[in-house]
């Protein structure tokens, strides 16, 4: 594995868990997959559709999201995802953990002399 590859795999590792948190944060209202790709990307979180779609399905399987097919204004049907009550619980637990992580990382990095 060369330098660049190693760096990108480390960054991917770091990003992995944050994608779920980002996704859940935006699903209080029903959103369809590709719209979510755009919302996340507008906020600076680039997630490929080929990662996001399977992830949404997995989260649905875990009872964190629910989905339904909807047809709006004569367009083709799209699958809309929304967070469930169970999903909200998970989201709150995760975001608390995230805040703790951010503050401890901030402190660690401030102390670091690198």
């Amino acid at each position, binding site marked *: 594995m060369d330098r660049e590859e190693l760096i990108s795999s480390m960054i991917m590792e770091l990003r992995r868990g944050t994608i779920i948190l980002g996704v859940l944060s935006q699903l209080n209202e029903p959103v369809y997959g590709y719209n979510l790709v755009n919302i996340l990307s507008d906020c600076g979180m680039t997630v490929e559709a080929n990662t996001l779609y399977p992830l949404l*399905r997995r989260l649905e399987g875990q009872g964190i999201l629910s989905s339904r097919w909807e047809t709006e204004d004569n367009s083709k049907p799209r699958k809309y995802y929304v967070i469930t009550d169970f999903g909200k619980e998970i989201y709150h637990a995760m975001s608390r953990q995230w805040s703790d992580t951010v503050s401890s990382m901030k402190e660690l990095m401030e102390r670091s002399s690198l």
Partner: protein
Amino acid sequence: MSNQFNHDLIERYIYAVTRQLPYKIREDISKELQSLIDDMLLERCHGKLPTQTDLNLVLTELGKPEDLARNYNPDQDKYLISPKYYGIYKSLLSIVLASTALGMTIAGFLNIIFSQNPISLPLEILKWMGTSIMGLIYPFAFITILVAIFERKGIFVDLNFSDFQDLPKVPREQEKIRKFDCVFEITFSILFAVLFLFTPNAIRVFTHLPKSSGMSSIPVFQAEVIHNMWFLIVLFFLISITKSTFRLYEGRYTKRLAVFTVFSGVISLICAYLFTQAKEIMNPDFTNYITDIFSKTSDAAFIINTFTHLNTVFLAIIAFAIFLDILNVVIRAVIYDK
């Protein structure tokens, strides 16, 4: 034209993804992908008719169908033997194949030594190589199927305990089953199975026959009868190898091991009974020879009886060994596995 081409390509792409997925989710994923590709094209072309290049770019962004399918269905049921069982599989395979190869080599030598007819050595070696390759394929298949069953049933490495209290306690020295013993059992079983299957004539008595000059020998059993019952021999040793494998990974005397030992003991005993009591298993030349030489001794009846019923003597020895094994495992399991 281009639209038709695009439509066709989208269909083919979606099919290439969904055909690798479980049947029940295929239709939904295919609808989902169709709507995703439509959305991506819509965004790229801003309402204009998408060209082939647009579609190619969109599909490239989605990636190879097999990668996308893997994202949808990671790792599930994809392995015959998954990485967590691979270590077990590899070590079992090396023990079993090495023992089989050794057994086949010994059997090959014995066959050449005891061959009744003049033989051509190169031909025998070729024959031996052929049999060895076939002989190695069976245990290979057996071990693969055995471990694949373990994989499906989650035997051995199922650490799905809910509480650390459920972790098994560290066995004391006398509670442990030594790895070496199990490996020895497996190796010995295979060696014996191979020898028995391929050179039943090796069990024989050496003597000076009156009519011939020099040493001669007579096989104790009828090779054809033994050959005809190969399935009993195979079953007997398969059970024995499975039991030793179970022991190897259990590593200690447990109740489930005791249950399996009793179960395998019963099956082995049935096999041994059917095998040793088969009609005409004893070589008549051997029984005649024994009757001849011992008819003049004082304990004639007893000796002749013992030797001419050597099959029953073997059965008794096997039964005794099975009994001791069951007794040993059951008693230790009762004492140590509380």
